């Protein structure tokens, strides 16, 4: 007689509590394919863990954002935020779509130039610009967003030596009614510091004040904060015209649009609470259109959106290493994805799902990474199906900041693969190995021999 199919024994405590008032089920969907390629095939070909980026999703999200703004305001220009994801292939997709580059260091500036972005289509932000960086930026006619007075004085000193007019904007911080208030970058609006900076720039013969910039914060869930910011920038545009008869060419509202990831401690998932591109676009463009800026001199609106454009296009695939019971009986799952590769797990409760069909029972589970470090926790508590060693998992929305803030720690960083619009996969950053990690190290002569 043929033996029966075995099912794992399960015992669950019945908890008679108050049901979730939102009726959200603990049902976890699984993901078997990314852009029609099997997750198992990707891991078999490129290893585990593995970052996967969907080119199709990047382009679709970008076009959705552009369309939200272009249908409301005549002059729009996006600039790709390099720090969010500066893998060359990713940047090139945005540049093919028409996005300029927004960089915050000499390294990123060089990357943008090497990616073929002309210097005059690079926005140079950030508090750390060395004299060498500023010389490079002025020579390439980049738009320099001045962060502090010391930087302003450096530019005033450097520009005549280079023999080119420095094209500048100032970064302005302000109260937009939200918390936390970012006041460490740029010049303050309310205390008049921004106006002082403008008054120092305008008489300078070697500086051309092209724009005004603000970046009010990150993961902003209140579109109205952008209305306040756009309103305050517009008031400065009008004031500059009145005093100097000078038209500001562009206003840069920075980034900060939320992605659909869920912040730790949030009551509802990001998919339910995150505003749409239309919400942000309406908040910003309505303020500009209703401002006192002359309608035939409306400045170009620059946007440096990073997170909201790329997060959804990134996936992190991994494999289950072990199941364990914690001291209190809770299940824990150890996977080969650690916080070294998933830096954003420090502030997001990332959506993690099994790849393929799994056992229908789920348990309250803690998901750990592979590092020999207590902080290596991917999810503290999640209703998760019971997986076995070797099963695969997919973490969604990891496109922003992970491939730039990742750490080479304990393990090598993995391959990054991009799936093109025709469903073909390409390695866009190779995994590290012993040779790449040792390339930059030097051992002094007297330490070459060891005696054990």
């Amino acid at each position, binding site marked *: 007689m*043929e*033996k*029966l*199919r*075995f*099912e*794992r*024994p*399960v*015992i*669950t*405590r*019945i908890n008679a509590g108050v049901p979730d008032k939102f009726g959200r089920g603990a049902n976890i969907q699984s993901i078997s394919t990314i852009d029609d390629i099997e997750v198992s095939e990707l891991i078999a070909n490129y290893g585990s863990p593995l970052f996967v980026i969907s080119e199709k999703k990047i382009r679709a999200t970008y076009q959705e954002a552009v369309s939200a703004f272009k249908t409301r305001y005549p002059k729009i220009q996006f600039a790709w935020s390099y720090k969010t994801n500066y893998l060359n292939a990713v940047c090139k997709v945005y540049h093919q779509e028409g996005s300029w580059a927004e960089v915050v260091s000499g390294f990123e500036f060089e990357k943008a130039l090497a990616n073929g972005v002309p210097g005059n289509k690079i926005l140079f932000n950030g508090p750390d610009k060395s004299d060498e960086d500023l010389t490079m930026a002025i020579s390439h006619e980049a738009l320099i967003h001045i962060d502090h007075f010391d930087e302003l004085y450096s530019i005033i000193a450097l520009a005549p030596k280079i023999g080119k007019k420095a094209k500048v904007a100032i970064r302005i911080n302000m109260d937009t009614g939200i918390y936390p208030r970012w006041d460490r970058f740029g010049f303050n609006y309310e205390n008049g510091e921004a106006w002082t900076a403008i008054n120092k720039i305008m008489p300078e013969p070697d500086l051309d004040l092209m724009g005004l910039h603000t970046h009010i914060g990150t993961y902003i869930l209140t579109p109205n904060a952008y209305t306040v910011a756009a309103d305050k920038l517009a008031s400065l545009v009008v004031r500059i015209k009145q005093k100097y008869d000078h038209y500001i060419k562009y206003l840069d509202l920075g980034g900060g649009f939320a992605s659909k990831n869920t912040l730790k401690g949030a009551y509802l998932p990001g998919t339910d609470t995150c505003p749409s591109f239309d919400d942000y676009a309406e908040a910003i463009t309505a303020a500009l259109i209703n401002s006192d800026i002359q309608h035939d001199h409306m400045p170009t609106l620059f946007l440096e959106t990073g997170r909201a454009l790329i997060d959804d296009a990134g996936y992190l695939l991994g494999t289950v290493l072990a*199941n364990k*019971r914690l001291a*209190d*009986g809770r299940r824990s799952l150890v996977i080969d994805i650690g916080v070294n590769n998933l830096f954003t797990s420090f502030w997001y409760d990332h959506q993690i799902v099994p790849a393929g069909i799994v056992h229908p*029972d789920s348990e309250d589970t803690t998901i750990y990474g592979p590092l020999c470090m207590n902080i290596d926790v991917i999810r503290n508590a999640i209703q998760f199906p019971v997986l076995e060693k070797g099963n695969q998992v997919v973490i969604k929305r990891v496109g922003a900041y992970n491939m730039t803030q990742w750490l080479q720690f304990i393990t090598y960083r993995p391959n990054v693969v991009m799936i093109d619009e025709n469903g073909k996969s390409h390695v866009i950053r190779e995994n590290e190995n012993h040779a790449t990690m040792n390339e930059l190290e030097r051992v002094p002569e007297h330490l070459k021999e060891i005696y054990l």
Partner: protein
Amino acid sequence: MKLKKNIAISESGFLFDPSSGDSFNLNKTGQQIVKMLSEGKSENAIIRSILEEFKVEKHTLQRYLDDFYSMLRQFNLIENE
């Protein structure tokens, strides 16, 4: 390993522990194992019985049983060993 004596188990897999007032659900396999435990069968006897009846490798079964027994202990359903 012995199941606590006063535990009540229904045929549908509902388990009640009168000492704590807790109720539990068991799936079919869980029910079968708890029944064998309540009949006083040893862990080895339980393994033999399951291997005869079901298509499962011994080491896989052992892993599942270890986990299942740890849950029974966690829920205080086992006599002090």
